[in-house]
């Protein structure tokens, strides 16, 4: 089962849990299951305007590297998932005034 590392701002929603094991073959499935366990978490992770996209300014790091497929990113049973602020590379210009996590 993939392991999801819960960023500090979201731990309020997971009762303080820092990691959660969640079944799912894609990022979307994992987020859906997370939502059923921890209501409210999905809206912090998913773009309200486009259900295929991560929230603006957020990156999902899967097995060490950022996904480029958004919620469609396939996961392995042993995958590690981190939701982190987007690294933005040399491209920190495109940031929001307020992040969701």
């Amino acid at each position, binding site marked *: 089962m993939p392991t999801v590392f819960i960023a500090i701002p979201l731990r309020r929603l997971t009762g303080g849990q820092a990691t959660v094991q969640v079944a799912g073959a894609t990022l979307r499935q994992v987020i859906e299951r997370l939502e059923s366990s921890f209501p409210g978490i999905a809206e912090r992770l998913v773009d309200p305007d486009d259900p295929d996209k991560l929230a603006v300014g957020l990156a999902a790091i899967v097995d060490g590297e950022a996904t480029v497929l958004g919620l469609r990113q396939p996961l392995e049973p042993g995958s590690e998932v981190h939701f982190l602020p987007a690294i933005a590379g*040399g491209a920190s210009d495109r*940031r929001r*005034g307020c992040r969701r996590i």
Partner: protein
Amino acid sequence: MTSKTGSKKSESKKTGAERKFRVVGTRPIRHDGWDKVLGRAVFGADIKLPGLVHGAVLRSPYAHARIVKIDLSKAEAAPGVLAVMTGADMPIAASKVLDLGEEVTNAVFASDRVMARTKAVYKGHPVAAVAAVDHNVALEALRLIEVSYEVLPHVVTIEQAMAPGAPLVHDDLVGSDIGERVEHTNVADHIRYEVGDPEAAFAEAATIVELECRVSRAHQGYIEPQNATALWHQDGKLTVWTSTQGSFSQRNSLSSVLMMPASSIKVVPMEIGGGFGGKIGIYLEPLAAILSRKCGHPVKLVMERRDVFDATGPGPGGIIRVKMGVDAHGVITAATADIRYGAGAYPGASINPAAVCVFACYRVPNARIDAYDVVINLSKTAAYRAPGSPQASFATETVVDEICRRIGMDPAEFRLLNATRGGDRRTDGPTFPRIGNVETVEAIRGSAHYRAKLGRASSPTKKRGRGMASGYWQGIGNKSTVTINVNNDGVVSLIEGSADIGGTRTSIAMQAAEILGIAAEDVHPAVVDTDSIGYTDLTAGSRTTYATGAAAIQAAEQVVEEMKKRAALVWETDEANVRFADGVFTNGAAKNQHLTFKELCGKLDTTGGHVSTTGVVNIRGSGGGSFATHLVDVEVDTDTGKVEILRYTAAQDAGKAVHPAYVEGQMEGGAVQGIGWALNEEYVVGDDGVMQNATFLDYRMPTSLDVPMIDTIIVEVPNERHPFGVRGIGETCIVPPMPAISNALRDALGVRLTELPMKPGRIMAALQAQAGP
């Protein structure tokens, strides 16, 4: 100045299994070189178009002021003036700006930044612009625009901005404090990472060192000012010629700010005179576009140097506190970091990369990182070479040096003991793949420089010291497209969308040549506009040679596959019999049937016509990023505080150096930019919120007389995510110089400089404080 011109260049440290390369690793002359040494290369400001007119921008003289009224009538009536614009001409309606909050799009900030609507939030903030028959007429017309301002109290330091009751840069900014919504604040963001229990670990630590460091904001200092030329076509389409690090990201930004479809905009990337992260954002482009729409001519805008300093984005300054504890053996057990960066007038200092990089060089089992993005009344900061990493790493690397002194451990040994390796978890969570951190430290430890004695100072008032520091930048992957068109004469054209700032046309062409088995010179690269190539992300994040190179490899591999089919046709054999190696196609089913790539190209017309392929990549991540370790010897005049860099060696992991001369060039240039930031470069901001030293004269970037030769050691720990093992190397090299020099000054003088720049007056003050009253 005693540079060692005799010093050996680029010792190469190879690690791991290696593919045999024919082109990669050689040093061909760059394809665009002739035009550049002949003065023929066309940079942004060089463009000439039929009917071209010139513009100029009126900017706020105040750091923070409400715009009460703008009277354009005199300017509009002036002879030769063709169009005048203000924030009222910017497409986003004023009411939308009031919607700032969680739903805010960055286009609002981007739009607001390029031209103020109701208030100016930094000195140099555009408030109006003019297009006229020539540049001087436009400049003179600016003087006829009457703006009445209501000057507001400003905040230009992080302390001012975070103080209770501080004036607000934006009344409607909604900040986030670890995910909690905060209103009426200048702190746009506070993020936190935590692993283990740092407090418990500190309680057990044998030695703890804590330092608070201050870093001035520093400008990229590219020699070419920002420029933009735009033509708003009668059919509603827009063409923009500009010096940009990313024509497609530029197109996206323009699309958001001008509220028009991206497909209606063509961005033509001109030769770009330096960027270092500073030419990602839009500044003049929307203004040129709107002026063009108003006057019907193509309009050219070129920034003046003063405005480049005042109104474009330097890297942020900050206050960084790092605390680190080690056990009795010198193993790091805990570390915390408090990182506060001044974002400028809009949110978005590079605090997250700072948090990723601050402890990236070390295994830290118990860590907490807090980082704050603070808005202040100075121009919005931008990316600057490894954005966010140098400031934070300055604190970490000086703390590490103090620990080494405290426990009596050699700094190279300490690093080898504590260095992150593949499989180690970063403090922000994810694990590293194979990386070259240890190898860069070993390269420095094995260098002639490390073994050399420091030598006696050149006079009794001078003292010498040596310092070491490491650094990291993660880099990115993402989207690139490369098209290869095969010509009948055996030369291939390589079409790409990556802005070439430092020779990447060649490093990408070489990767295609490697696959095709032809000379680098037989690949003709061209950087083209957004209508002429598939989407390509910007030249930033150390991604171009890595990711666009991967696209070139993919396109070249497709060429080989297609050419095998053609060879099979020539030899009337099954395609499966055709082999390709070292640039030669051979028929495995027949004796003595072989064709070089060039020979086969001559037969394309009779085997089905031309061959054209496109490589499209969207790469996840950088493959672990690039580590560097630098070693520097300094001599300080204790009478004046002046520092001379005596000797400098930089080691960095390039994965595989495609064109070693340009890898060295990045390392040398990054080191010298870092030396500038370390010793002299800063924004001196007066009580009026205005930068006082906004000229090259007073900004004091290093001249050729201020630095020695920079010795380089290219370490090659292959990147598992790139077919040739290539890593992006453009950015990490600016991270180690500042702490390395602070550490060398500590060695020379016995005092710790914690504030950048470590200018002569600060060094003298530190020496006097050490001597006591």
